[in-house]
């Protein structure tokens, strides 16, 4: 099989599939007597990605495989195709989803503890109906509450390859750190800094690129020596 047609087969199959395809699935479309190497498929994918780089489409890898999609920058034109506005999700739903995504496996009770309010049954139902969240087990405590986790569909929908791709969580700071700074006689300056920072609305970008952060338990207090850095 020529390399050229390999690339075109993969392109055609991905375009026809209507869903992400794994490397194995892609291998599966070839005749068993004419099976390409996995590396050849990877190379063809890379070539297609290169070809698309100038265009309105892209070949991306998401949770459940490779998919060809129309780029975000084409949204203005594509959205005019249909009258329907994309669905907006409530803050309650998004916060619940965020907790399942970052803290899975997690029970509804644990979500409620963090959010400080009860989570409605309809939200859990919607998340499961959308197949973003599913029950991955039950906790072995009285009542056997369901434990939730996210699905591949969740990753696919939000264009993520894995949970590692989720935006980094804000860091937690320890209350002692601020006391320490106060003792150092820096409160005035710090207060001013905070004012500046809030005004420019930068507080959320604690992107220190620590990939482990999302995995690390929330309770882990941030080393106070880091705190100064966070305040910029």
């Amino acid at each position, binding site marked *: 099989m020529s390399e050229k047609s390999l690339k075109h087969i993969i392109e*055609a199959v991905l*375009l*026809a*599939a*209507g*869903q992400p395809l794994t490397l194995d699935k892609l291998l599966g479309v070839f005749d068993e007597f004419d099976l390409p190497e996995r590396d050849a498929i990877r190379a063809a994918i890379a070539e297609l990605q290169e070809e698309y780089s100038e265009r309105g*489409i892209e070949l991306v890898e998401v949770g459940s495989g490779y*998919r*060809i*999609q*129309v*780029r*975000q920058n*084409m*949204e203005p034109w*594509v959205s005019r195709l249909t009258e329907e506005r*994309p*669905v907006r999700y409530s*803050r*309650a739903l*998004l*916060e619940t*989803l*965020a*907790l399942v*995504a*970052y803290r899975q496996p997690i029970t509804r009770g644990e979500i409620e503890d*963090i*959010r*400080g*309010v*009860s989570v409605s049954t309809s939200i859990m139902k919607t998340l499961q109906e959308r197949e973003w969240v599913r029950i991955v087990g039950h906790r072995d405590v009285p009542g056997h509450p369901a434990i939730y986790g996210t699905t591949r569909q969740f990753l*696919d*929908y*939000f*264009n*993520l390859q894995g949970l590692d791709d*989720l*935006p980094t*969580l*804000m*860091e*937690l*700071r*320890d*209350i*002692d*750190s*601020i*006391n320490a700074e*106060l003792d150092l006689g820096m409160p005035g300056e*710090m207060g001013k800094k*905070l*004012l500046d920072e*809030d*005004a420019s*609305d930068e507080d*959320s970008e604690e992107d220190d690129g620590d990939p482990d952060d999302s995995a690390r338990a*929330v*309770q882990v207090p941030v080393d106070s020596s880091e705190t100064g850095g966070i305040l910029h």
Partner: protein
Amino acid sequence: MTDTPLPIEAEPQQAEMPFAYVQGEAVTSLPKDLYIPPDALEVFLEAFEGPLDLLLYLIRRQNLDVLDIPIAEITRQYMDYIGLMHEMRLELAAEYLVMAAMLAEIKSRMLLPRAADIEEEDDPRAELVRRLQEYERYKQAAEDIDELPRVDRDVFPVALEAPERQVLSRPPEISLQELLLAAKAAMTRAEMFSHHHVQMEPLSVRERMSIVLERIGAGDFIEFGRLFAPEEGRMGVVVSLLAVLELIKSSLIELVQSEPFAPIYIRAARATVLDADDEAPQAAAGGEA
């Protein structure tokens, strides 16, 4: 600590969340002595995802650091809202009252004089701060997730018309284990029918019976001796012989010998020849009981 909240414009973060719009005007702070239409307050309350969210709002509105909350002042503001909600006879989620109690407790603990030698003592606000921060990070994460390029809003997966697909269906697979379990189940059941004498001949005989039957299937005579392959050894010969005997017993084959000591031929019992390629009669006689 100042009582006057900063104008909302100074805080883009909160701009999307004014209290309410009353007759076209954004209400950004609750005027203390002013009458507020109940629906406006309801709208305001609906903008919050619970007491933690409300507290965060109060803190952020004044550009305060979560780590250094002026508990007395924040508690007072929080209580004002709670009081208003009460006045409006709004259904107040229990969580708001629980938070009010927590704030009151922290406040009273802060008021207690602290001896210098127990400086180590935990800041009474620590737990609240921890919860506020924890909540805030997921509130932020929810906003971040909302910003991710999303299918059908930002990116659009492609599914093209493809040529008419032949539906290829692969035949099911069976494992040997399954076959054996099925055999066992069938046999076990058969034993419950006492009139069934399940024989225990070696399987090789049964297999050979099928092979012999098939070889003579065409209706020809086959010389008896040709059923035996010397290279199979003594066991093979015995198996072949047993198979032939068993077939004769079941009237499936006939032995023919024209004269004593002449070669023995075998052939299928007569009916076998007649219907060799005709399945129809069996289907009818198959006995769909």
